């Protein structure tokens, strides 16, 4: 197996990971930045690496380019066989990294909830369709319904519209009271207000409904229309795609595999982003959904701390509190309504990988019971999708992650160093 050594390994090259790697190098450590995507940027800066249009992205991506940080992309973490040892799988086979300290910056994923028709081609996560489109998924001229919850809906709709899509409707499940409270709460963070105003400008003329959600997607081989509920009103809307996401959930698989303590579904960290496991730090959405400002600030702090120079992050420490306020504000105003728990029918697929129906899962007593009796969460995605859904639907906790962290070639378990390529220069 190919091998690499590094002082600080940064897992994930979104804003938090980039800030961590760049800051670790600035603080004097050698950093290795790894991501499963083909280039750095994470979800929010997808496609910005070669043509940055966002000023913050441009600043950090040029900092990364100018920094001696070594980047390895298109590699997915699949195993942590021993402390300080990380095995990745990619197109060129496995790679083993030995490091002294690690920063987890694995970001977040969308919460996808089951409803009749949600497995049809043409039904996406909201951010999901946005990032697919950023990588060339054709949306120009397509009629798209954007639905779910949270500020991401506006960003996704604006982005899809700028690529030529016709946004049929944005359906936000939160009521207008919550949204008004969220908006006025932003007055304490003026740049967020500016951002929001910018998004709204891009969405002029797009129908936006609060207290509204999709109950069904229809079509035989692809989605053709959706049924949207608003109070007692039910309407059917024709569309070519449905982009629906119910907020973000932290990606915690890596942290859990390393034994890090979680609180409220997020990785617990101290003021230096240090987790409960020695030498392991976490930055960004993994510590709780808080957006890009929190990710950058925490990345800087984690990078400095992992380099053994926590004191260099003093200014970032001051910005940390503001970003935490925004995160708490976000959580408070986009709580999911109970009606979303009854969208799935007994025969609606809940676990997409193993085709386990909602009704079969409902009869079980816990995630573990459901795994054993129905194989829920036992397929390729390893409960990344249905786990977050079950947490909302049934209140089930996540099951213990088992190796590999994602499906991996059997050669990833061959720990002997290959003879042809004993050690790559670092």
């Amino acid at each position: 197996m190919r091998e690499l050594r590094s002082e600080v390994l940064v897992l994930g090259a979104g804003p938090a990971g980039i800030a961590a790697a760049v800051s670790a190098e600035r603080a004097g450590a050698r950093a290795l930045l790894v991501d499963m995507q083909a280039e750095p940027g994470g979800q929010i800066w997808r496609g910005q690496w070669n043509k940055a249009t966002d000023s913050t992205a441009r600043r950090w991506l040029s900092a990364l380019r100018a920094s001696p940080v070594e980047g390895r992309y298109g590699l997915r973490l699949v195993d942590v066989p021993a402390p300080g040892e990380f095995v990745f799988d990619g197109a060129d086979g496995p790679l083993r990294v030995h490091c002294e300290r690690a920063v987890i910056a694995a970001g977040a994923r969308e919460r996808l909830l089951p409803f009749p028709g949600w497995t049809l081609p043409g039904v996406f996560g909201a951010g999901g369709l946005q990032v697919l489109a950023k990588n060339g998924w054709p949306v120009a001229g397509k009629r798209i319904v954007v639905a779910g919850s949270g500020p991401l809906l506006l960003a996704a709709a604006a982005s899809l519209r700028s690529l030529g899509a016709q946004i049929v409707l944005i359906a936000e499940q939160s009521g207008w009271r919550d949204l008004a409270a969220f908006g006025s709460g932003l007055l304490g963070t003026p740049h967020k207000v500016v951002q929001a105003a910018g998004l709204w400008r891009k969405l002029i003329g797009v129908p936006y409904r609060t207290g509204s959600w999709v109950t069904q997607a229809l079509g035989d081989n692809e989605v053709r229309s959706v049924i949207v509920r608003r109070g007692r009103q039910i309407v059917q809307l024709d569309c070519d795609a449905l982009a629906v996401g119910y907020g973000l959930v932290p990606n915690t698989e890596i942290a859990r595999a390393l034994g890090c303590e979680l609180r409220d579904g997020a990785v617990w960290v101290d003021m230096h982003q240090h987790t409960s496991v020695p030498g392991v730090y976490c930055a960004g959405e993994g510590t709780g959904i808080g957006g890009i400002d929190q990710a950058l600030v925490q990345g800087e702090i984690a990078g400095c701390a992992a380099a053994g120079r926590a004191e260099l992050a003093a200014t970032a420490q001051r910005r940390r509190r503001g970003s935490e306020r925004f995160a708490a504000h976000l959580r408070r105003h986009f709580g999911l309504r109970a009606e979303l728990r009854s969208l799935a029918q007994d025969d609606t697929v809940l676990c997409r990988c193993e085709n386990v129906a909602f009704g079969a899962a409902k009869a079980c007593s816990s995630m573990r019971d459901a795994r054993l009796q129905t194989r829920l969460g036992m397929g390729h995605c390893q409960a990344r999708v249905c786990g977050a859904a079950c947490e909302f639907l049934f209140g089930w906790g996540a099951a213990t992650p088992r190796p590999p962290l994602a499906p991996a070639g059997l050669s990833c378990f061959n720990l002997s160093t290959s003879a042809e390529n004993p050690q790559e220069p670092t």
Partner: protein
Amino acid sequence: MSTVASVDVLIVGGGIVGCAIAERLARAGLSVCLVERDVLGGAATAASMGHLVVLDDDAAELALSAYSCARWQALAPSLPATAEYRRNGTLWIARNVEEMAEAQRKQWRLAQAGIDSELLTAAALAEQEPALAAGLAGGLRVASDGMLYPPVAAAWLARQAAAQGAQIRCGVGVRNLVEGAVLLDDGSELRAPHIIVANGCAAPELLYGAPIRKRKGHLLITTRSAPRVRHQLVELGYMQSAHGGDGESVAFNVQPRPSGQLLLGSTRQFDDVSSTVTPRLIQRLILRAQEFLPGLATATALRAWTGFRPTTPDHRPLIGPWPARAGVWLACGHEGLGVTTALGTADLLAAQLLGLELPFDARPFAPARFAAQVSHAA
């Protein structure tokens, strides 16, 4: 809470053995309560392969496993489809002439129990399983062996028991075993003239001195894009690995799941009681499997896990009265054969408890064989 309830039989442990006993005794008309501290079939049952196999190391094991496999076969039409019962047979693989000679001896021993098998030449082996490596000597095909998905089979047995009046209580552990009763974690007491300890590796927690050690095993399952295999494939060296000394051992044992996935076993080690996957053993497991199935080189692993086999000093289960305590019965210590022998265990225990004719000789399984150990432990 100090409620007291009373039943004829109390079963501790909702693995496949406990569930089979609950079904058997409820069917006999007894009032039964089964107590499981976690979920049904969640421990060794969940970790196991679900290979239904006749083993022939000694006459007792042969009798128990042959009887049990026949019982599964009889039960098969009633099992739910999700129990995935299949009679796809075992193919014992010989790598050389010595192992071919062992295959012949195995055929003779199996015949003593009325089990038909077929010796395969190297060419016949390759025809049966084209994915196997070239250069193997041959094998023995036991067509009557099968497989199932154990957690679903266990839960189904428990539901059958419940349909006949048994109480199935999950999520509550047994804190203590006292005279004619158990104390549960929730503070309540359950009284029963017969208490059956069927909690596998946890038996020594209730019965100090119960001669059971944990023997850790690793398994790995691939995605559906693995090489095509029809039979359960086991190397003839497997029994040496299973019954060998206290050291680590790895033997080739692969099961084709109905889904098209391959389940890869098997490893054995004592003295490691952590449930974490040991990278070194997973590596050995894979390398061993690739020697027999070279096509695995490009396969994708979906998940690896570990489990513990409840192992007795002579590798035979403990089925029968526990001599140190009146009214206490054991049905544990099945090592890697608990799924295969669950139904035979239930019948043998029920026959002893109800005073019926024994289906086969009970003496080799009598916990009393460890009486010396037990007498000072009680």
